[in-house]
């Protein structure tokens, strides 16, 4: 900025014109660059989708749409279907989000609004560190420590107390959708909490002061002013978390029990699309088998797209409502 001011002072009118022109020129280049970067991202994702489409042709031709509702996964009989995996993926990812979103938001609020300054940064580091634990470590720790000590007793209690609800039907084994979802929830926590925290921190002070001045309690200020104001950012964080939960492989595979079960019970073992891929990809012995696995990846791709579409519509509706209420 100071450069411009100086230029204006020192140079004549004609020089000033060339300078603006050059700057405008810079803007054109910059604009082209941003478009290029945006395109690279779109093209990469498109190419991945296209690759999945191209390399699953055998399986798509053989099973057609029936692939989506097929309940078998039989490499010996060469009969493949995706339903148990679609179901398991949706159930475990949604359960993980239900567990992780409130906790993640709580952490974000605590770190941005309540924690004393000296505690804020170290706690933030610790929470973000959860993202750095490799998923195989989550898997092994979950399998040998977390599930037997923590998850199984809770699952037993849920089953004994609420076993009449299909959601908590027994029998209870260690590995289950519940166990996988709990560990998934821990894994997506850092994303949700760290991004939401920064969203809260970025909200202008004036918003808070106005709410407090009107006599709101701190919690009312947070829940009725900060959350609606930062909603887009928070939902962005939740969507990143959802992506992680849908695509996570090794930790889930070690904890979910890998069973083609279609019951409603979260205490039963299940199977996800991502864990199926990681389980069988390296040992798929004939082309149709491999292509069926790739079609699973394609289905996951499409489902992620669909879920994001739904999420966007929800955001749009919520945002419309809150703008009319809060910002008028």
């Amino acid at each position: 900025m100071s450069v411009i001011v100086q230029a204006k002072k020192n140079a004549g009118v004609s020089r000033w014109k060339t300078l603006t022109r050059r700057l405008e020129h810079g803007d054109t280049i910059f604009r082209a660059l941003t478009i290029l970067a945006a395109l690279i991202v779109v093209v990469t994702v498109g190419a991945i989708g296209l690759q999945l489409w191209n390399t699953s042709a055998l399986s798509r031709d053989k099973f057609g749409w029936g692939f989506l509702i097929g309940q078998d996964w039989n490499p010996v009989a060469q009969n493949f279907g995706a339903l148990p995996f679609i179901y398991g993926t949706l159930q475990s990812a949604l359960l993980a989000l239900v567990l992780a979103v409130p906790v993640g938001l709580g952490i974000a609020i605590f770190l941005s609004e309540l924690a004393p300054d000296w505690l804020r940064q170290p706690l933030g580091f610790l929470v973000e560190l959860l993202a750095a634990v490799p998923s195989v470590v989550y898997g092994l720790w979950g399998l040998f420590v977390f599930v037997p000590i923590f998850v199984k007793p809770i699952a037993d209690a849920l089953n004994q107390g609420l076993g009449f609800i299909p959601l908590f039907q027994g029998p209870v084994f260690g590995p289950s959708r519940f166990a996988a979802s709990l560990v998934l929830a821990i894994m997506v926590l850092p994303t949700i909490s760290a991004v939401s925290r920064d969203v809260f921190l970025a909200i202008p002070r004036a918003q808070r002061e106005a709410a407090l001045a009107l006599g709101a309690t701190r919690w009312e200020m947070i829940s009725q002013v900060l959350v609606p104001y930062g909603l887009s950012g928070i939902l962005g964080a939740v969507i990143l978390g959802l992506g992680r939960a849908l695509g996570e492989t090794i930790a889930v595979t070690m904890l979910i029990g890998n069973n083609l079960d279609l019951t409603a019970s979260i205490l039963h073992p299940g199977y996800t699309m991502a864990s199926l891929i990681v389980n069988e990809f390296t040992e798929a012995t004939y082309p149709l088998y491999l292509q069926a696995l790739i079609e699973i990846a394609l289905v996951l791709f499409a489902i992620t797209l669909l879920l994001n579409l739904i999420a966007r519509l929800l955001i749009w509706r919520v945002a419309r409502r809150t703008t009319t209420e809060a910002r008028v």
Partner: protein
Amino acid sequence: MFKLKTAIAFGVILALAVIVSACASNAAPITAPTSAPAATPASGGVVAAPTSPAASGALTVNGAGGTFPYPLYSRWFYQYATVDPTVKFNYQAIGSGGGIAQITAKTVDFGASDAILNDSQLQAAPGLQMFPTVAGAIVPSYNLKDTDGNPITATIKFPRTALADIYLGKIKKWNDPVLTQANPDIKLPNKDIIVVHRSDGSGTTFIFTDYLSKVSADWKQQVGNSTSVQWPVGLGGKGNEGVSGVVAQNEGALGYIELAYALQNKLTYGLVQNKSGDYVQPTTAAVQSAMADFGTDMGDKLAISIVDAPGKTSWPISGYTYILVYMNQTDCAKAQKLTAFLKWAWSSGTQYATELEYIPLPDAVRTAVLSKLGQITCNGKPL
């Protein structure tokens, strides 16, 4: 606005170009491409003067394949560096399927597989030869308390078809007559058997289901034999550690794991009745006896299933692991190093195999394998 639209149009064209270029090369990712350009010498290793022992100038030979032999191979290559410091071996465990695909695509110098290659796989890679290196045994492992509530540490005996019936869901309880009759000294409880199997595709599952198919016609017809199958009952655990973890968590659980894993982690395992009706311990001798039972039937393929071996002293559930090498090599220096190494592995290398609980080849099989190794050529000429 106009400018933006032009830019987008331009971008879309660019995008298509990138997509096309990306997809030109991915007709068959990772799995075997049908036509791999054979002329391109395989991976990395820059060939420096082979006589120079300097580490940086050493020849690198890359290999990829199953996870089962990885600990042994890495030990072998480590020890072999003291025998011949002019060559470096890099073996990575990417799975047997991956190993077959990579050697077919010639992105590596040798492959490794626990599963026997089928005809179509061999056709896709003409001249590819399987060499058995060692064998491994599989044992049933369980977590169970007897009727008095004491953990059972004794070896439970499983009659010949019992495992098949358990994995089919026909035998449901630990005190099923089939099991109590075979184990009169053990107070087997009235408890459900929680069946645990591998969830990941693996050579271990291939060998185990091969065994079940041999001893049970029902299994063969209903489930079959593959690196992973549609299990009628049970929970899946990823890898040996996954199976043993699930078994440890559930009283009454039964799973199959590699013998090496059971021994190293001090897990309780049972005995399985062999074809002649005997119960033998899964020792080196028992597995070598199974290998010898089929020794003369290996033929040119040098690969054979050794489950349900007929010998009195044979352990019934075991299998070879193989190294995959082209009989006609294109890089003579590498070919020489590779064959020299394999000769070493089958002689001096066996002590490390035993140390790590792998089972070395019996003499008869080794002779056949060494004679085949002598026939490897380089660009059509003998080495």
